[in-house]
């Protein structure tokens, strides 16, 4: 398995541990990762110009296409954005024409041959939950984990095709593979509030804190994340707050620990 690794903008600068742990874990599992000169997926431009965001996304896809690779991203926000761009390109012929023209001006072409994959479905379906469980050396027995799917992983389901959007199980099965115990929490599919933290900080904070309280009340010790935005949001809201807090862990870190990889390589 070989993929072009798409890290997005948040991971390299704000959460380099996610990149480190992703590389460590996938390397251990025999997945080859290639680094291309990707740029922003286009998400911030979504509420400014549909054309611009699709162009930015399509450019990354074109780069992957040129390298003959599919794209793999550990960021669910980037995943959703790139998949949305694919959708818009698929249904709007004029948009496609405009974007193709702009790409051609930069010597690139998009024809839709590169797929966009997220880390979790890759691990669950291509590597396989059973294969992961078999590779575990240090099971995280007794650790109660609340899975944070993140919105753009699940919805809209016909774009993300991640799992059943109302009753997803993929993340929990991945957590179980590490030996940890997934916890059922009512707000598990809710938005973490990150997209609003600049536009409406108080509202964003309420959303995040409601999730944290819910996870704690459901008996979780850790919130396991698969998106840097969610992860950083939970950390930021809890930093310096007197309210009871919960630890956050990236899935790649949880899996890496279970596989017996050294903590340092996982950014811990």
């Amino acid at each position, binding site marked *: 398995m070989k993929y072009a690794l798409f890290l997005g903008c948040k991971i390299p*600068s704000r959460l380099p541990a996610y990149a480190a742990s992703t590389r460590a874990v996938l390397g251990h599992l025999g997945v080859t990762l290639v680094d291309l000169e990707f740029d922003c997926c286009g998400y911030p431009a979504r509420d400014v110009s549909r054309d611009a965001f699709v162009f930015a996304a399509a450019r990354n896809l074109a780069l992957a296409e040129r390298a003959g690779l599919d794209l793999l991203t550990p960021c669910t926000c980037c995943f959703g954005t790139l998949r949305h761009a694919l959708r818009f390109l698929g249904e709007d012929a004029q948009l496609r024409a405009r974007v193709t023209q702009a790409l051609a001006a930069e010597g690139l072409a998009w024809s839709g041959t590169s797929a966009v994959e997220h880390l979790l479905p890759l691990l669950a379906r291509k590597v396989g939950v059973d294969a992961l469980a078999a590779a575990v050396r240090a099971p995280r027995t007794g650790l109660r984990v609340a899975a944070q799917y993140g919105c753009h992983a699940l919805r809209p389901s016909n774009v993300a095709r991640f799992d059943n959007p109302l009753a997803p199980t993929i993340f929990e099965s991945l957590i179980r593979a590490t030996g940890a115990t997934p916890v059922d929490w009512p707000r598990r599919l809710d938005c973490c509030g990150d997209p609003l933290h600049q536009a409406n900080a108080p509202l964003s904070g309420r959303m995040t804190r409601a999730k944290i309280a819910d996870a704690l009340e459901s008996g979780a010790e850790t919130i396991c994340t698969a998106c840097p935005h969610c992860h950083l949001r939970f950390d930021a809201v809890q930093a310096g707050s007197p309210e009871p807090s919960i630890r956050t862990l990236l899935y790649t870190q949880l899996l890496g620990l279970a596989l017996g990889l050294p903590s340092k390589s996982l950014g811990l």
Partner: protein
Amino acid sequence: MSPMIFQTALYASLVLCALGLAWRVSAWFRVRVGPDARAVTLSRRVAAVFQGIAATLASRRVFQIPGAFVLDVLLQRRLFANEKLRWFGHLLVVVGFTLLLLMHALWASVTVKLFQGYQPTLDPYLFLRNLFGTMILVGVALLLYGRWRRRTGLPQARRRIDAAFVALLAFVLVTGFLLEAHKIASPRAFYRMAEQFIGTTDAEKLMPLRALWASEFGVAFADLKTPIAPHLVQQGRELHRDACAFCHTPPASAFVSYPVAQILAPVSGLLDQVRADIWLLYLHVFACFLGLASLPFTLFFHVVTAPISLLVNAAAPQRELPGQTFPTPTLSSAVRASRRALALDACVRCGICDMRCSVAPLARYLGNPGLLPAHMLQATAALADGSLLRPGREAGALRAAEGAFLCTDCGRCTSRCPVGLDLADLWEAARGDLAAAGLPAPAQWVQARAALAWAESLEAGPGQYIFSAADAWSAPLSADRRTFSRCVQCQTCTNVCPVVAHSIDSEHGVDLTPQKVMNLLRLGLGDLTLGSRMVWDCASCYQCQEHCPEGIRVADIMLELRALAVHRLGAVRSLGERS
């Protein structure tokens, strides 16, 4: 040139330079960038810097400074990591300039003390002068080429004064080469020397010497016919050995000036007549003094600012980010305030930050260079000195604002800047300043007014029904009535919306709910939605779209409305509204 003129000009330039430096350095404590900087007084900033320096000197971090000086300042490791060609060019310029300065300009205080027999007309100085000068020219050419090679498809940030400085540098070098070339070829210079050291200017008596000097030293005697008889040259050599050789070696080693001298040979006499040796010298020397006096105000200032910036990075306590790939210094807000002001001066507009900017594709597509870091920095400086918001400059201010709020904070510019500027911090500060100046992110400026107020402003403008065929390309869902005509107002979208759930308190509450937005669209009252809190507080979590029993793409529509709002409301927005 008379020593008095020289000394006066030198001291005047030094004084101007010192005054300029004082002024520029003071700006680092006066200029306010970022809302948090406005809270810090001048004296506090000065004190904080001194405290910071003292703290560093007293801590273990002081041992990092020598290493950082060698690696970052002298060897330019950060530049090497990004642009090897430009690194090499820069190295040539720095080495060439420094050695030229020491060996040639400061010969009286430096070279003579180290090498007793120094004479500018002797080798290796002839060769070295040309070498160093050439190194500078080649280095500058490489830097310019490197810059041209990396053009992003958008205008590169530049200042006119940068070009002027480069031109001045080139001018100094060119006049230097010309002066030397002229002196090599000048008969007048020859006769002057002959008078001084041999005691005669008689052309016939000096014939052998002239023969030698014409054939091996490049002097262009108008009356000397080629070919020159070798026995004359041989005679001249004996005379030369006694009178001239002590101070002169054949200037062929001046590999630039000598060929130029040969080119100038035909007009040597003319140049002598117009006393080119005088005015070329004045041009050359005064250009240097001009460079010195203007140092604090030109690109040359980076020789002061860049080392400071790089050493601050090394000396400051570092923020620990597990797995980080570039150092992130943490500074108190008082020190940071000064650091930002320094950054505005330390930027050399190399454009390396622009090269791998994550939103460069967006910048290109939107046709807005304001998204690129080098431009953002200029805008930040313009914001700090108030020029960004002058009347008539709205377009530029808006471009800067769009750029500042589309920045994704990826940190690539920061990790690549060869001068070690903390650009990420600068952008955050700039965003705060823009917001305070009435240019916040769209979510803020839209929500500064009520939805109804915006709708009324739109009414005053052309077109009542906001969606026309022209919108179909950018907002295809919202412009197509079929999209929401199936809405039966079941309120499912509202019931599953976390924004509505958490906005229950009426103070922060949303003015419309998702199903109300859909209803307004159905009723053709979409203009009421553009400025509504719901549209701007939407977290795009897609619960609404996922649950809608009629398959209406509610969240996609919300995002379309936002983009539409930025354009429509932007057109009727009056700038300068303070938030």
